[in-house]
């Protein structure tokens, strides 16, 4: 099965479970979790079920397209179900079956792995899912987001698409994976991988990036004060990506590093708090909607 069909299959599967299909969020980010469709929507009491593909940038993992396993940018298929349904594990295993993975022919295990993102004040408990020894999915019950307790609890399922594809297509080099029949990941992404790596490690303008970081940070602060949660959060994402670029270049000293992380964390906390207040002011609309649907 090629990657495109995998995406279509997963979308169909989770759509059938009542998930909204979203598109990737248009700001650079390191993981699907950071999309406001996960991070903000998993806050507060409103139900939320969503699935989307998220291109995820990890500048430090860039290898000029030379490493068979590591990428500047990989793809995650992200699912959020809030509150987590009682049969969430079964729903997940059914999705593997839909991808043609027969659990009886493999060894599938849920191995404890707790997730934490200090920058976003977020933490959860769960597993990494092993398919014949390979970690193919991160499965997490959110416990805390933006420093706030997550109630009700969201289940987050994050498939590493390239990982999973390398298993399904039995390929050892990520660039040989078929996106559609006849077109490989290498065909599409080799050039951007090479160029982004070159940019990240050699060409990026540190002074400009430092400046951008503080500009984004100030703007986030400023519009936070006006209660504009989503725009403020976009600037937090920009801060985070800019920080990752600087960090990958190795130009952030120790003291600066701790400082930068705690500054982003403080912003994320404020945004989380304001978001919930804002939703409350609006009367938690999705909660009402659910009641109406039940009637």
């Amino acid at each position, binding site marked *: 099965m090629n990657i495109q069909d995998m995406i279509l299959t997963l979308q169909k599967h989770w759509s059938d479970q009542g998930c909204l299909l979203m598109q990737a969020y248009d700001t650079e980010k390191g993981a699907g979790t950071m999309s406001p469709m996960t991070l903000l929507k998993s806050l507060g009491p409103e139900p939320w079920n969503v699935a989307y593909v998220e291109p995820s940038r990890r500048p430090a993992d860039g290898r000029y397209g030379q490493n068979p*396993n590591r990428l500047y940018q990989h793809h995650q298929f992200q699912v959020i179900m809030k509150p987590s349904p009682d049969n969430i594990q079964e729903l997940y295993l059914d999705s593997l079956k839909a991808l043609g993975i027969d659990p009886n022919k493999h060894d599938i295990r849920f191995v404890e792995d707790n997730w934490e993102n200090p920058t976003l004040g977020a933490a959860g408990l769960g597993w990494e899912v092993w398919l014949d020894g390979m970690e193919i999915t991160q499965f997490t019950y959110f416990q805390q987001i933006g420093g706030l307790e997550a109630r009700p609890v969201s289940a987050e399922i994050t498939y590493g698409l390239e990982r999973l594809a390398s298993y399904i297509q039995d390929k050892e080099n990520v660039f040989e994976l078929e996106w559609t029949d006849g077109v490989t990941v290498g065909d599409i992404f080799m050039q951007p991988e090479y160029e982004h790596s070159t940019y990240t490690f050699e060409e990026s303008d540190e002074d400009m990036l430092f400046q951008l970081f503080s500009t984004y940070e100030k703007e986030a602060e400023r519009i936070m004060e006006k209660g504009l949660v989503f725009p403020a959060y976009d600037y937090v994402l920009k801060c985070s990506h800019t920080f990752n670029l600087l960090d990958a270049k190795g130009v952030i000293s120790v003291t600066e590093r701790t400082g930068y992380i705690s500054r982003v964390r403080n912003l994320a906390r404020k945004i989380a708090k304001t978001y919930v207040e804002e939703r409350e002011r609006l009367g938690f609309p999705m909660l009402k909607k659910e009641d109406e649907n039940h009637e």
Partner: protein
Amino acid sequence: MSNTVLFELGVEELPARFINDALQQLESKTKAWFENQRIPFDDVKGFATPRRLAVQVTEVAEKQPDIEEEAKGPAKKIALDDQGEWTKAAIGFSKGQGKDVDDIYFKEIKGTEYVHVNKFIEGESTANLLKEFRSVFLDLTFAKNMRWGSYDLRYARPIRWMVALFGEEVIPFSIENISTGRTTFGHRFLGEEVALHSAAEYEDVLKQQSIIPSLNERKNNIHEQLLHLEKEKQWNLVIDDDLLNEVTNLVELPTVFTGAFNEEFLEIPEEALITSMKEHQRYFPVRSTDGDLLPFFVGVRNGDDRHLDTVARGNEKVLKARLKDAQFFYEEDQKGSIDEKLEKLTRMVYQEELGTLADKVQRIKAITGKVSDWLELDDKEKAQAQRAAEICKFDLVTQMVDEFTELQGVMGEKYARLFGEDEAVAVAINEHYMPRHANGEVPSSKVGAIVSIADKMDTIVGSIAIGIIPTGSQDPYGLRRQALGILQTLNTLGWSLPVEQIIDLVHNFYVELSLPTRSKEEVNKDLHEFFNLRAAYLLREEQVDPDVVDAVLVNGINVYSTTLEKAKLLVEKRQDETFKPIQEALGRVLNLAEKAETDEVDPELFENETEAELYSTFTAMHEPYVAALENEDPVKALEILSELSSPIHEFFDQTMVMAEDVKVKNNRLGLLKSIAYDIKKYADFNAIEWKQQF
């Protein structure tokens, strides 16, 4: 009539590390619960897999035993009125006991007759009591709990079903949205939903459902499969009990499989290969019967032996990718120079308040220098120690250690050799992390030991200076283990170096470098207290009784090996009748000396011979005694000290210390104080309790 009881809690996969402990808790808490409820039973058997915690109780009685007891009421003269009729008091009493006046009989107690009834309490039905068993499940504690869905409960993992049966009957109760029933679930992929007919058939039914519910049976099953494989393939498997426990708790039905990797990866240091296999993939590494690592591994799958080839092939692929990474790291790490890597330490934080790793290395170097001087190392050794201190952390910036943190030091040694460092320096880099765990091996080379002590002391002083002090079970930086490591290393290498001397040296560095610390006095007190507690712990481990521990630590630890020898000697002496008068004599001196204001003695003021005799014995023994202590010879020192025993006894027999003449009194107290000063250098003899011999 009795019957079997079964409780099963079905959960989403529990963390493997929780399961052994949860099983133990479940068994002991179940036992305690039945005992508290006064329900007779024969035995409790627990089961645990990643997806279930269960307990079966056999021969459970149908009800609690009835209780018969005699209840005493009012005196006869109050219970009967003048007409011989029952009074209100008597009627009230019998009613209160659930009885009738007809049940009353009299019994004499100390000459007075009282009303009595035989009270009968009928045992409650077990079926009824079992409804409360949910508390046992809720009382289990886990290292980490979580919430799920919209529920309030916090538990290790979400609860998905519960079975509760007394014989063939369901015991009704619920936890959150889950109610008990007779339905359990078989293996996730090989089994199915199944209704249990009775509590007794639990294990059989689960086995039919491709599950080995008993933790021990599962563990033994894996072990046997491994041994069988060893024999069949002529291999020597590295079977580590922790790993065996972990894989036991990752599967419900274990099947062992083997895989291979390319021989070229054997060039990677075997520690890295083993870590990759064990820690990351939970495989058992394979050695030849000669002990050489072979390019194979053994894994344990959660399922039966069907499609085992697919599983093995998938696992091989994963391991290959990991080993390729390791190989890449190993090659990359050998590029550049040690100096280049050291430069990177300036950008790695050690502790926010205490600077970078490069700062820490500077301190380790300074401490190493001082300690090398004290131990009178020769010039070559000193240079080796300096170099080892300088580069002891360089491997922390290598990609290999970044990936396999537990290989810190191990890789440092290997890379140092490849970069052409001295053998002693290379070895010291690895040894400076020793002991790596409680009671682990200590460094065996001088240079390794010195750098190890310097690094650990820097960590301890730095942490305590900024207020990181271990409390209770909280010791995130492993300071206790490191302090023990210092004492054990000093002891094993037989170095006559007082611990306090090193503590003070490092603490002074911190003050001189104006690193952020709390007040000097406070830190000093905390440090000495912390080390004293560690020394006390170690002495107790050596079977030294608590009172002797207190006695020898009265002036701090000093040279630990000597303090240990002293303590052992005193433990032995305490069993010896002839030592009793010596201890009494020395103890009396210590007691009275507390009343003294000065330690001045004027022989002119002596009034009797025993004073003069004690004084002259003391002046004669003082120097050899101090010399014996300085030579770390506690046996000789105690022998000399014992010479004071008779003069002291005679002194107290003949002399009234608290004389009326103030001058005479103070002179006598002064004499005792100067002697006490010497005695205390040995131990607080009053802390030692004399063991009564019967």
